[in-house]
């Protein structure tokens, strides 16, 4: 357990609303090991981003109610003072956001914004900070970094901006990098470049990466471990290869099926999961995936615990006695191809 750099236990986030409290996250628990890329997948509204914001303590809504423990190197983040938390943010745990178009302050040059972070955390002088920012920009694959330093965010393309964001995030060599849908707003070719960049970072700096995405393609490219979230819960997690080959939860299966096949005949229509995820205030009793699940049965009216199947965990009664038949069928189907 000691190699866990981040341990999240029973993280619950709710908001007080006019209709009473609404829980967005319910008892989320997971670990991140040093140097590992953990991918959090799920549809929009499943609580992926909320989890990352909770870790960074960036939920500023006064109506938010947050409970649970988030241990970073043994320190419980919710218990830290605002000052201590500030020292951690950007220094130990850094974050990249989805939309690089709006995530940078429009009135400052990107170089200034990168240097600002290093000056605040590392106490660097203006000249040193500038030099290191230019180096970082170069490492991120930005052409002519010396000139790029003095460019404003609106001068750069989305991909370049995201590179600048990443340069800023890793400028203080953080132990954990949280990337909240870092490629969603970008072109596909640029996406691949950014993913490569993230992998290089892990190799070079050894930082752990929590990658939040709804793109199974991204997951299969770079993740070591995958967490699948649905309706504010982690419903399945395990090593990438296990989870992608033998999904235990019908929801994961549904996600897998909706990826276009790389080989063979192209299906006329990709299978999709019927319906849409329930709104946070209107989640059904028991398993919240039940209304959309083709396998639902009587037991599903209770909330399923996380069952263990080998190294995988799934919150589904089908997984109670190990892998279920349909998973084997799917495996056979794959080998037949």
């Amino acid at each position, binding site marked *: 357990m000691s190699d866990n750099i981040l341990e999240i236990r029973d993280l619950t986030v709710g908001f007080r609303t006019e209709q009473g409290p609404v829980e967005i996250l319910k008892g989320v628990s997971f670990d991140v090991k040093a140097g590992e890329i953990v991918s959090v997948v799920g549809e929009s509204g499943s609580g992926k981003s909320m989890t990352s914001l909770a870790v*960074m303590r*960036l939920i*500023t809504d*006064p109506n938010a109610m947050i409970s649970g423990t988030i241990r970073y190197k043994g320190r419980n983040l919710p218990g830290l003072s605002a000052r201590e938390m*500030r*020292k*951690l*943010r*950007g*220094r130990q745990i*850094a*974050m990249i*956001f989805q*939309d690089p178009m*709006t*995530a*940078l*302050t*429009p*009135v*400052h040059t990107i170089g200034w914004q990168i240097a*600002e*972070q290093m000056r*605040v*955390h590392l106490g660097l002088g203006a000249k040193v900070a500038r030099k290191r920012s230019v180096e970082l920009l170069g490492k991120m694959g930005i052409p002519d970094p010396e000139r790029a330093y003095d460019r*404003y965010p*609106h*001068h750069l393309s989305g991909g370049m901006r995201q590179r600048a*964001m990443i340069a*800023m995030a890793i400028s203080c060599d953080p132990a954990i990098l949280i990337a909240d849908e870092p490629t969603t707003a970008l072109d596909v070719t640029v996406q691949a470049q950014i993913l490569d960049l993230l992998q290089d970072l892990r190799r070079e700096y050894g930082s752990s990466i929590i990658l939040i995405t709804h793109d199974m393609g991204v997951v299969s490219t770079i993740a070591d471990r995958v967490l699948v979230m649905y309706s504010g819960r982690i419903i399945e997690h395990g090593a990438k290869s296990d989870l992608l080959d033998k999904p235990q939860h019908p929801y994961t299966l549904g996600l897998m099926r909706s990826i276009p096949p790389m080989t063979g005949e192209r299906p006329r229509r990709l299978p999709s999961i019927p319906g849409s995820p329930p709104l946070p205030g209107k989640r059904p009793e028991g398993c919240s995936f039940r209304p959309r699940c083709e396998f639902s049965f009587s037991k599903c009216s209770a909330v399923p615990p996380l069952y263990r199947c080998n190294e995988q965990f799934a919150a589904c009664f089908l997984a109670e006695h190990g892998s279920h038949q349909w998973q084997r069928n799917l495996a056979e189907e794959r080998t037949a191809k």
Partner: protein
Amino acid sequence: MLLAVLRRAFDMVFVMFGISVIAFLIFFATPGSDPSARIAGRNATPEMLAQVRIAFGFDRPLYVQYGRLMQRLFIAQDLTSFVNRGQKVVPAVLQATPVTLCLVFGAAVIWLTAGISLGIVATVFRGTIIDKSLMLLALAGVSMPVFWVGSVMNLITQSRFHDTWLFSWVPGLGYTSFFESPSLWFKTLVIPWFTLSVLFIGLYARVLRASLSESYQEDYVRTARAKGLSESRIMVRHALRTSLITLLSMFGLDFGALVGGGAILTEVVFNLPGIGRLTYQALQNLDLPFIMATVMYSTFFVVLANALVDVAYAWLDPRVCDAR
């Protein structure tokens, strides 16, 4: 750069020409607005009227009258008042300008300082009772007419409480030049400054509060937080810096309008011989040369302020700079 300046200058001349024509037509060509009748007085005989008409050139075609007026105003600069014969217009305007500038400049310092501070404090404490009471106070400031505030100020400082220790230092109404006596200059202006700034403090505080809370919803403020910056740094370097763009454009227009005679009510209430009061007197007597001169003067400052705002805009907001 030079081209932009030239274009601005051309725009300015064009706008001033347009406004001068409109003002001229309003006072000289509207039916029933016979200037010679006003100059000749109430019981003028037809002979006198005709004499005045010829003496002042009102019998000439309109475009000649307009051309002569503009020539005397801008080139010869010997245009004289219709009412106080012999009083030259241009020196009177030039004499009134520093008074207005002093008044508006001092007020601007006060209203920017107070407005920005109040806006920041309200944003920092947003949602709390401090925020709400500050915004209510600001609304009260916006709602109070400046002539009323000025009269009440005068009532308090000149009359009711003048004999107490609190306001015994307040000199009588009027203006003293800075070069004559700096301390007296300050004392005569300090109350008009505050009076004039009350409205703008309220306005700027409310606008800044709205703009700042909008900024705080933006992604880049979240990024700034995620970077581990302190709240004060986020406020000053990221949120306020972006909101200043809004505030600046407001400031430029307000300042231009006030220097151009918009402080008329304050100047009249406090008996400050500035452009506003000059306009006021000219309008009371329908003294056309003076009206023309003050209108031109005020147009000049409004257009100038607009141009300066645009320049400052490009400096504050790099996105504007490239759009040109």
